[in-house]
């Protein structure tokens, strides 16, 4: 996880995104323990206080649970994870659509383009 950070976006949010992505990809499973604050800090070369804030943020949104004396664990509630997956999808679509619109593409062109892209990709595979 030694990728560098975008220096103009708060690091605690970027770390949040990275951990969420790992959970969605299944690299960290439901009910599994997250690395300790210190290990995450060392791993990504960031301030432990920042990691603490990331964990707090994830905890507040219910994605992880802190168990006293044991560490931080990914929730076992599938509804929360499903919701997180959905949110992530929407935010990526949002980004795509707003960037395409900025460049002047119509909704129709976007849809057609996306379909085309997926079909050709499927044929290649």
């Amino acid at each position: 996880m030694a990728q560098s950070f975008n220096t103009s976006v708060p690091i605690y949010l970027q770390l949040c995104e990275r951990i969420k992505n790992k959970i969605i990809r299944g690299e960290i499973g439901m009910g599994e323990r997250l690395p300790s604050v210190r290990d995450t800090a060392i791993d990504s070369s960031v301030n432990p206080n920042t990691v603490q804030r990331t964990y707090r943020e994830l905890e507040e949104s219910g994605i992880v649970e802190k168990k006293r004396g044991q560490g931080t664990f990914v929730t076992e509630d599938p509804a929360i994870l499903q919701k997180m997956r959905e949110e992530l999808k929407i935010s990526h679509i949002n980004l795509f659509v707003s960037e395409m619109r900025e460049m002047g593409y119509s909704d129709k062109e976007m849809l057609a383009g996306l379909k085309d892209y997926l079909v050709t990709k499927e044929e290649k595979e």
Partner: protein
Amino acid sequence: MIQLEGVVKRYLTKKALDGISLQIEPGHIVGLIGSNGSGKSTTLKLIAGLLQPTHGTVLVDGEVSNRRICRKVAYLSELDAYYSFFTVAQTVDFYARTFSDFNREKAEEMLDFMKLDRNQKVKHLSKGNRGRLKIVVTLAREVPFILMDEPLSGLDPMVRSSIIKGLISFIDLEKQTVILTTHELQEIEPLLDTVVLIKNGVILEQKSVEDIRCNENLSLVDWMVEKYEQ
């Protein structure tokens, strides 16, 4: 907590600090940033008790800072300050005898982490390994305040990254506070809680680094350049 109140420092006729007031809360990693000659090193030396202010007060945990404050403060100089005829192991021994708060185990662990050869003479070490050794003997002290003057300057990226990782691994922010000066902002910025920006002996601003990213959408480097040009 560290408190500076209306501190002025003059070297003969040259004013290095022109009335700075500053408060540093415990449990943070603080970066002192600014151009060369802006007063960063002078500020650190005043906190370490190595210099006395011309006017104003410097308090460390409520105590006026003087030479004896080294009980509470570990100071890493930007210069090479050890005996070149010592081996790495002897240097560690020397520090262990000098400071009663020196944690031997931690030092040994760090020597392994930094991959330093204990039998090598200090004068035969590369500059990078001398930099690593300095970090080892500074961080092995269990003191509430750790001051580092340019811990990364002039070192290659591998050494810099091992020093940064060493810092995170061996510092206990529940008990310790770190203040460091640096120009390597890009590398150090994920590590900092707060920055203090100094220009010509005056503090321009003290700010949380995440706030700078959050409220101004700027990286630390861009922020510093912007503030300096105003």
